[in-house]
């Protein structure tokens, strides 16, 4: 598989699209838009997985794609939308990094990932090298999002998009057993569940989803 081949180009295109959606996630201010961007990212991830299944000839990955589409593309976004509706957060505008700073930070992170990954994986196949760089960028951008956001739901979305990066990495590497992906998917579901419950609890107790309000209630306050 080389540059110029269809399978190579398409998988890069899909991986790059996932990364692009991570950038989009980074500067969205409205909760609804964040969830929509996340749903799109999940769908793109599912497509990347399906294409990888086709290109690598591993039918197991179709299952991964199906799971990603169902869970990340549909179920979790729907649940989050419902959460937002019930908590009445439609109009919330929250602080996020502006377009400029988030772009700069993101590009710097992506550059860093490429600088690290490409020399470190010199012996590996071309495809997995660059997919790894993309996946790692998605992971780091997800982390960055978790740090910059104050809202609990946005933080959950950041965590989930971080998971997307992991799945992308797992899909790109040929020969990864399905068990890993299934267990990762199960883990993500559990996290989403716990996060949802957690968000409800915060809301009930403190009337806000700003995790900063938790600080006052920590023990060992000095």
């Amino acid at each position: 598989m080389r540059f110029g081949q269809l399978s190579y180009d398409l998988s890069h295109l899909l991986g790059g699209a996932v990364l692009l959606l991570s950038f989009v996630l980074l500067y969205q201010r409205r909760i609804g838009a964040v969830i929509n961007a996340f749903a799109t990212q999940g769908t793109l991830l599912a497509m990347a997985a399906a294409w990888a299944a086709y290109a690598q000839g591993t039918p197991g990955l179709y299952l991964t794609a199906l799971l990603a589409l169902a869970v990340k593309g549909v179920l979790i976004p729907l649940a989050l939308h419902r959460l937002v509706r019930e908590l009445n957060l439609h109009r919330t505008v929250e602080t996020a990094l502006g377009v400029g700073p988030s772009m700069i930070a993101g590009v710097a992170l992506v550059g860093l990932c490429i600088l690290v990954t490409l020399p470190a994986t010199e012996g590996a196949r071309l495809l997995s090298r660059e997919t790894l760089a993309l996946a790692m960028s998605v992971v780091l951008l997800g982390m960055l999002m978790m740090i910059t956001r104050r809202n609990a739901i946005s933080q959950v979305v950041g965590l989930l998009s971080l998971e997307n990066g992991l799945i992308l990495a797992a899909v790109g590497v040929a020969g990864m057993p399905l068990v890993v992906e299934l267990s990762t998917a199960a883990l993500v579901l559990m996290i989403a569940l716990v996060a949802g419950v957690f968000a409800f609890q915060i809301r009930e107790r403190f009337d806000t989803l700003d995790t900063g309000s938790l600080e006052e209630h920590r023990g060992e306050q000095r």
Partner: protein
Amino acid sequence: MLTALALLVGLLAALGAAAVPLARAANGGRLLHGATALAGFLLAAGGVVGLLGGPATLDLPFGPPWGPMRLALDALSSWFLLPVGLSVGCAGLFALGGAYGPVPARDLLPWPIFVAGMVLTLLAADGFTLLLGFEAMSLASWALVARDGAGAENQRAARIYLGFAGLGGLCLMLGFGLLAGGAGDVAFAALRDDPPEGARAAAVLALLLAGAGSKAGLAPLHVWLPLAHPAAPTHVSAAMSGAMTKVALYVIARFIFDLMGPAQPFWMGTPLIALGAATAVIGALRAALEEDSKVLLACSTIENVGLIAVGLGLALAFRGADLPALAALAGGAALLHALNHAVFKTLLFLVAGEVLHGALSRRLDRLGGLIHRMPVTAWAALIGAAAAASLPPLSGFASEWLLLQALLTAWRVGDIAFQMGVAAATTLAALAAALAAAAMVRFWGLVFLGRPRTPRAAGAEESTGAARIALLVPAGLTLLLGLFPGPVLDLAEPALRLVSGTAAPRAGWFAIGAGDGGARYWPVPVALLVAAAVGLAVWLVRRRAPAGVQRGPAWDCGFIAAPPHFPFGDPAGQPSAAGFAQPLRRMLGQGLLAAHETVTMPGPGETRAAVLRSGFADPALETLEGPLPRWREAAAARAERLRALSIRQCLGLTFGAVVLMLALLAWIGAR
């Protein structure tokens, strides 16, 4: 013989393991202490047999991955088995006398392991085995010091002791590494083949002085000793002062006389002489000022360790200057003093324990007049204190006299700087001996003479049985060693040959002396003279006294009569420990020990009393630590701040760390 001693070490370790079931049995404690006491006397016997017989080596069938554990018994280790064995034997006997009913396992378990560690250090013939024994000794004694976790003072003592023990072990380890060089073989035979020279030898000596010297109590690393030795139970204090310091001195002697080769220059001895003299003065001065009997004795141990170190350093210097007869003299003084000190210091610590048991206090200000209630203890303590004060004809005098003779002949090393330095060391050693005498007079007088200062001291009870024997045995040995130092030095002749490199002169039965034509000391005639003088004085006093003895009330120095609620007189009517120490504290304490005195006078018309506050503090620990505690506090405060971070900041920290690592990786990959 060596096989038997190795088996004894194994049995002691097994005894330590058996301490847990023994602790539940009613007589378990007595059994364990009795067995340890027996082992102690067997060790001393083994030392004598080892000195009379030849050297032996033994390779154990197990050991570290790179080879067997090697044991050896030569004259030097045999000699040091004597102080260790006698001290442990007497201490074990005392513990046997004081143990009733079940004893908690944490008090029993470390004790035989402590002894086994000391013996293993003495028998070791490779660096690994020596360090194993040394660390077992350190850790077991630490466990015994830390046993009483209730007192904040004891906790601090245990903490500081652990720090110093760790530092010492580390330095010794580095010393062995430096000595072994690139080859990395730490068997003594291999180390002897490749003696260090020049800067490497000096570095090994510095590490040795920090490692074994801190364990022995050489200044300025002596600060843990007056804290840790008194914190342990009495028999452990006695063994720590009597035996453990000797094991550390043995390690020093083993390094400088054996492992570092015979061709060291004479100036290698100067650090030992200088540090030893400083240690002796500091220790003796503190002993003269302390107000707690066990702390006082621990400080006196520091003084004696300093004197022994001076002897070892002199022997090294004489050997380097090719004066073997003088090296034998100085080495003989050091070895003899090691044995004498082990015996009389064990005795004195056991006396302090007996007093603590009988009168329930270690503070000199709460004791007094115990000679009436505890006569055996008092007379045994007098023998020990007189030996520690180096009065003839007791054992301390013989060895300190030899040491001073060696110091006085040091001008024969033809280097003017060395001669000047040794002259200064001589005055310091003499000053230390005088201060130690003052300390011992104060100790014995305040504890046993005068009137009781508390009701508890007035009702003190003396132990009988094993505890009394444990006092009488070292007291008798102190007398014997004082009267017959000649045969003891003859017994040490093989060890002296190892120290000086040539055959040492025989001392004979009745006299010891500084070589042919030098000064001589005949202990038995001196003892007869002293006895005659004392007898004459007693006879004269009796003769001139009127017939019949009348006991009247003690003169209270002109104070008004004590109120009725002080049936034993006003305690303030007697000199206190601090008052007794005041002249020395004013004279020497201000410069050396940061002694201070403040008087708070009431203003005119006020009715409150004037207050005199005085005290001293050894500045060594603070100087050693330097700004370290402040840095630790600052670092702790900074680390504390991390706990107050919010969730996002915590995540940010992780994120930053990941990004930093990745950047580092990219940078390394780019290079």
